[in-house]
């Protein structure tokens, strides 16, 4: 059994002189949920399109399930389910007909998978309603159902939670986690909702301006996200003065509401609290916390927060 479902080697793609992907070496382990993070135009969709065979690399190579030869790659794509950019649907067909068309396309025997998939994504009651009349959330669900046809080993989803309501987002997350946990499906998921990715991804890849900046596991990310103590005192000016003089550190941030994020002494919160109490400050909130993925990503790409 191969350890990796996908590996790219110095993968590059140039569009009319613009380097959309620049020597990307990405690897996705079997059984992982890989959160692919990057700003708009960073190269996420370009990489996904190269992997799924919609576009061709300018340089470098792709290895799917251990194969990188052209014919083997085409065959390997039969083991992939994907929903890229926006759900690809026949607008004049019902949900069932859309699935049926894709079932025939993929050569899946028996029609029983169609109602099963509709039920799995919660579209079993759509009847004769045409896909063009679906809400964006329903289209996303149908796109996922199409991707899941044929029990793929590797699922590639580009912004799958776009247009979903909060309950839909939760359901989608739980469904993907279940598919990963119970069926062992490897998932590559790109999303702008980093907090959502943080709740399910086991691995991350950060791409910026066509270059893969970093790949790390969820554990490594947690280790890298800085710990801090969140402090809300009755007098933030006095509190900052105490931190600067009594604790002798400038490694903190003052938020707009006067709350303070103190990055030093996170392992010794009692030292902070006694310094603040000794200065006669009333403390409204005092919580040890960690940085989130969003903050780490922003820092990693150099401060531009537009994911």
């Amino acid at each position: 059994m191969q350890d990796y479902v996908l590996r790219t080697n110095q993968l590059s793609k140039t569009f009319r002189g613009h380097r959309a992907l620049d020597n990307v070496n990405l690897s996705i382990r079997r059984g992982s949920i890989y959160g692919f993070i990057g700003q708009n135009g960073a190269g996420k969709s370009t990489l996904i399109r190269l992997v799924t065979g919609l576009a061709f690399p300018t340089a470098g190579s792709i290895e799917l399930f251990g194969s990188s030869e052209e014919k083997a790659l085409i065959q390997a794509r039969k083991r992939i389910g994907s929903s890229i950019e926006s759900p690809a649907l026949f607008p004049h067909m019902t949900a069932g007909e859309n699935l049926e068309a894709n079932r025939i396309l993929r050569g899946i025997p028996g029609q029983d998978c169609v109602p099963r998939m509709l039920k799995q994504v919660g579209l079993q009651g759509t009847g004769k309603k045409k896909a063009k009349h679906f809400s964006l959330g329903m289209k996303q669900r149908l796109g996922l159902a199409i991707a899941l046809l044929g029990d793929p080993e590797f699922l590639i989803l580009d912004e799958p939670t776009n247009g979903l309501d909060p309950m839909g987002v939760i359901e989608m997350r739980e469904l993907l986690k279940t598919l990963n946990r119970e069926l062992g499906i490897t998932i590559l998921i790109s999303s702008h909702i980093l907090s959502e990715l943080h709740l399910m991804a086991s691995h991350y890849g950060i791409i910026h301006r066509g270059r893969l900046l970093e790949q790390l596991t969820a554990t490594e990310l947690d280790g890298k996200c800085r710990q801090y103590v969140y402090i809300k005192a009755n007098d933030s000016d006095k509190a900052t003065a105490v931190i600067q003089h009594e604790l002798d550190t400038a490694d903190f941030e003052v938020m707009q509401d006067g709350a303070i994020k103190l990055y030093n002494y996170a392992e010794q919160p009692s030292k902070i609290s006694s310094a603040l109490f000794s200065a006669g400050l009333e403390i409204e909130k005092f919580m040890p916390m960690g940085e989130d993925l969003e903050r780490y990503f922003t820092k990693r790409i150099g401060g531009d927060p537009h994911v």
Partner: protein
Amino acid sequence: MYNLIAVELFKLRKNRSFWTLLIALTALSLAYPIMYYVDHQSSGEPQFTGAEFLVTFIASNAYAIKFGAAALAGFFISNEYATGVMKTIASSGNTRGRLYTAKLTGFAIGVMLVSLVFPIVSTVEVTLLSGFGHLPEGSSEWFIPRVLGLTLLYTAAFAAIGALFAVILTDSGKTIGVSMIFFLMIDIVLSGIGSKVEFFGKVYDYSIFKLIGEIGKPSIDRGDMPALLLVPLLTIAVCAMLGIVVFRRKDIK
């Protein structure tokens, strides 16, 4: 390959533009003979028989074929780029060559069905109104199968050109517009240039655009038959190969 053709036929069955085209052509094919029938009845002229109608008006079917090929190329093939369905198809784990061949097959079958509407519906209607009559002198019992067979063959050739435009242009509006202009203007352009440059005259003489007018002739000389068969077959082969080459190199957006 079977499943790729099967899905194209499934999509064809569900394609509203295809059914609209079939229904509109059927309505026109029913209305056209009736107008002649009423006109001839009021003027006292003898009515067309089914055979006479077929021989006289089969050439007009070329317009239905050209329009059908252009419209379906846009709505059946290019539209899949706009809806994103082409992404699912292209990433399904099949070679681009097989995908294009299956798409061309499904599309050609659709246009072939369109091409049969006028000759069959009108001829049957006129036959019901005035009887079938006699085939023109010199024609054999193979006349009707030959006309319908060649109609299908030439339609497939026009479909191959339409599919080539669709895969190059990838936009339904552009595909329909460019194909229509091409199909309508190519006769004028080639015959015009051909009258001045002999080479182009020969090209036009041995093109499907000119030869489609020959398929309704009551009798065809033995010597003309190979060209009548080979030209559409070569057109299909060349356009299909070009289409595959283009589709294999194309990034799908």
